């Protein structure tokens, strides 16, 4: 998209320019006026860096970019393959030669070769040639000239080229201020990949402390780099960086992530978690919540391991390590329900350690014991253990939900009735009684309401001659009831 447009503009401006060979600056750049400035800034920088010593060299070189372009053959060659995306955006080899020949070419120039591209071009065009070939030649030379311009593009320009996937050279930006500006311009453009390329360039060329300071100034770049580190599983680096930036909680989460991502079994993971806890979480009171959770996780793993080892002979395909607290509790309720509290697999101990709520505990135990059809255990879960217990069941878990679980494990009507009958509120009780087929509760309910009509309606839904039907009929025949309807 960009390249085609540039070509167009080049052709458009061509004649006007080539007749004006005295112009100091190549005119077909993108934002014409900034150009001189940049060249000058660059030269000043070079002075600062001691790469060029004499002012007149610089001036002599100015406006004669041909020799520079020679040194950028690699970049130009890359540019000829517009599809090799950002061929020069990489580090090292392909790009670094660009800067060093620069100094060389500057001195070389004062020695006398004053031919510029435009000079060369005039001599070429003097010869009568096929216009098409000529045009191609012109285009080629112009491109090289354009490449030459790249020696010191303003950061905004480079940022834009990066974002558009065009080749460009980052190594030319030496002073910190320029690097900073380059990063800022790239961030403003919004291409995350370009930002990352610049960040990685900064990382390569800056002291660590300076690098972090730059990231601190550019939150977007910082996040980008952190995401990059995570994508490459460099969790430790990411955490270090976060810690340096003072983002303690996030650093802790990253460290935690790297601990749980550890492969190779329980032992290395436990080691990772313990380290994470001791070194990073526990010392910081602000992370109390996470500290508590990681402690629980460690304790759980330490509990699961011996239990699994002890039970493995009896249950070869047992897989306990790595399960959640409640899933572990479920296992313990299945196989170690009556272990004393000092036993590792004791449900009570597990409940105590992880401070499970009554609801959590009851739900899990309910399902486990129901699946073994240990109805008495289930009933015990709902029975209050205090001295003043009335013997009524307590709705630790909603009775209808409990009934659903029990029914799914094949509880008898009698067992179910116990829970349905405990539901508070006649309406709701009758509704669920009907759903689970506890006809006695339904019939007795209507009886106590003296609701003959509803009872008759209910009887109509029952199978004739069934026990339930009989029971309803008996009730309707009862002479002692004074029906309200």
């Amino acid at each position, binding site marked *: 998209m960009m390249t085609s447009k540039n070509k167009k503009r080049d052709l458009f401006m061509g004649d006007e320019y080539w007749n004006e060979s005295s112009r100091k600056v190549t005119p077909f750049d993108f934002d014409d006026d900034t150009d001189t400035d940049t060249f000058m800034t660059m030269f000043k920088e070079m002075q600062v860096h001691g790469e060029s010593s004499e002012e007149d060299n610089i001036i002599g070189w100015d406006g004669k970019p041909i020799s520079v372009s020679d040194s950028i053959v690699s970049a130009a060659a890359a540019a000829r393959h517009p599809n090799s995306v950002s061929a020069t955006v990489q580090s090292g080899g392909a790009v670094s030669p660009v800067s060093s020949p620069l100094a060389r070419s500057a001195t070389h120039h004062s020695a006398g070769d004053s031919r510029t591209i435009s000079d060369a071009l005039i001599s070429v065009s003097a010869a009568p040639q096929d216009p098409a070939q000529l045009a191609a030649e012109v285009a080629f030379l112009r491109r090289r000239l354009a490449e030459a311009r790249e020696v010191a593009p303003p950061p905004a320009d480079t940022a834009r080229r990066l974002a558009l996937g065009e080749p460009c050279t980052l190594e030319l930006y030496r002073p910190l201020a320029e690097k900073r500006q380059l990063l800022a311009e790239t961030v403003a453009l919004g291409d995350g990949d370009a930002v990352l390329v610049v960040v990685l360039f900064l990382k390569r060329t800056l002291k660590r402390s300076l690098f972090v300071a730059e990231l601190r100034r550019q939150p977007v770049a910082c996040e980008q780099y952190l*995401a990059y580190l995570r994508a490459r599983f460099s969790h430790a680096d990411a955490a270090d960086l976060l810690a340096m930036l003072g983002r303690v909680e996030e650093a802790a989460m990253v460290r935690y992530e790297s601990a749980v991502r550890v492969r190779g079994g329980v032992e290395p993971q436990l080691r990772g978690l313990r380290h994470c806890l001791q070194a990073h979480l526990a010392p910081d009171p602000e992370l109390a919540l996470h500290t508590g959770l990681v402690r629980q996780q460690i304790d759980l793993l330490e509990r699961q391991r011996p239990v699994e080892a002890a039970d493995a002979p009896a249950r070869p395909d047992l897989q306990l390590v790595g399960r*959640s607290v409640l899933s572990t509790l479920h296992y313990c309720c299945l196989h170690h329900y009556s272990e004393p509290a000092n036993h590792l697999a004791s449900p009570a101990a597990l409940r105590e350690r992880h401070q499970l709520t009554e609801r959590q505990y009851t739900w899990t135990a309910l399902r486990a014991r129901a699946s073994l059809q240990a109805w008495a255990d289930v009933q015990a879960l709902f029975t209050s253990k205090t001295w003043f217990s009335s013997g009524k069941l307590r709705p630790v878990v909603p009775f209808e939900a409990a009934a659903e679980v029990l029914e799914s494990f094949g509880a008898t009507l009698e067992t179910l009735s116990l829970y349905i009958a405990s539901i508070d509120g006649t309406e709701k009780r009758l509704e669920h009684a009907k759903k689970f087929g506890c006809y006695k509760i339904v019939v007795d309910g209507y009886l106590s309401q003296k609701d003959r009509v509803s009872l008759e309606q209910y009887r109509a839904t029952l199978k004739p001659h069934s026990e339930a039907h009989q029971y309803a009929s008996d009730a309707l025949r009862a002479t002692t009831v004074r029906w309200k309807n």
Partner: protein
Amino acid sequence: MTSALHLMHGRLRTNIFRDEARQKFVTLLDKTVGTKAIVWDERLTGPFGLVAEYSFLREHDVAKMFPLRAGRLPPSDVDTVVFLVRPEVGLMELVAENVQKEEEQGGRRKEFVLCFMPTGSGACERVLEERRVRGTFSQITCLEVRLLPLDADLLSMEYPLGFKEYALENDPSCLFEAAQALLEIQLKFGIIPSICGKGNAAKKVYDYLLNLRREHQDSEFPTVCEIDTLLLIDREVDLITPVATQLTYEGLIDEVFGIHNNTVKLPSEKFVKQDGGPIEMTNDRKQFLLSSAEELYADIRDKNFNAVGPALSRKAKQISAQYEERHSQSVSEMKNFVKNVLPTIKAAKESLGLHTSIAELIKERTDSESFLEALQTEQEMMNAIDTDRAHPHIEQLIAKKADLTRVLRLICLQSACNSGLKPRLMDQYRRDLLQTYGFQHALTLNNLERAGLLRTQGRTTYSALRRQLKLTVDDVNEQAPTDISYTFSGYAPLSVRLAQLLARPGWRSVSEALALLPGPTLMEEQPAPAAARNRRDTGPLGLSADDARLTLVVFLGGATFAEVAALRFLSSQEDAPTEYVIATTKMINGNSLISSLSEELVPVGGA
């Protein structure tokens, strides 16, 4: 997809995007020599299915196709291996490994081509360099395909993790790509004079777009502006809609079975008798293509599911009436009937059969107690009933260890409808979830918090928003809807409400509500090139001067089918102030949104 005819009937010729993508793909393939194997980033196969079919690839010498996996490539006897991937650093390790193993193995020398879609990535290339395989590739190129038409009025970038990238990782790449896509749209359909938007992402896209436009001369844009208004909506502005259960037909198909790039896979036992639906059987699932190319589907997809049954039975009657007509016909009429009418009737019948089966499958789900309970919970939350406490239904779902994504969706909805959860409640949920599902999910919860889906109570905004934007509507008509709230049986998607209010009476009327929503509000005019004329000023051929205005709504971070349905509903209103076309970074629903933010971790014992 063999035909793209239906793409040409919309207000914008979205088929242009399809043709262009196809052309670019061909150019890429024909640039390489000999027979080819394509190694796919698996998330790209679906989107490419929209523009090219396998037979088409075969014609261009594609002999083998593999998914990108760790390890070695399956053996193949091709000249060139083309890796087609998203520019993500994480994938480069896989690519590098593939190439290294292939080289070690020796044998016939293959050429390797790496192709990024839609743009290249310097960071990715650096990874390849570090792994010392960069030089192995004879070409590193890119396939600049940004927009794929899902329908005549719906374009998707199919950008996989856009919301996660910008909301969680602060990576604006997705937004930059969106800006590029919008530039492409303007290069095809003219400068859009008015740009509005809400949210941080909207502002960024707007800024990027202005930057990008400067790269182009006015003369490069068409002189006629076909789109009047661009509305940019940041997903962050409306995190209620995507986590709520969609209740339109298409929305429910997506919720229950998942629609990916217009195709849905359904349990095949339901579809043994007919073979009207296209393409292959995959094990016990059968694949169907859903688009407006199918007349009946176009008719019912945006209806509330409760209105689908009646619509289907109406259609059935209509078909049999048509079929009956043959009795009262002369011989010549009969001939015409057999030749012309009968095939359409047959197709209509097949289509009816298909959708009756799908509707039955969905009804099974929507009639289930768990669905109804969850729905009731959602409605209570949207009406701000008891959102301050642990919701008994959520507690019960956790106790039953229901699907974690489902539970998280409800908690996120509660968080949104309560303007954040009280810290104590948040901790209670957190403990409960971690103890039930495993401690490793702490990371997922952390992500949801950072992305703003879960938050602790801050400024209370929801009740004011609900009132000012009329987000909940009591008497909703599902059969003959009068308001967009039909899409959620009583809740009007906030995002679409914003679009509706923008068109009439304008955002100034709801400036208070807009101030309550996160991020800046944009209302900008974009100077059109001097040569450009408004479509209505001139009335070019085929467009009458009183043609309705056209608004392009762009969902940054993903759109749901219910939102699309709501916008189509607005378009179809008789006195509609504007029609809509829709673009999105990706089609999403609550499940895909939550799982995009989830960290998949294998518990230690399972490893």
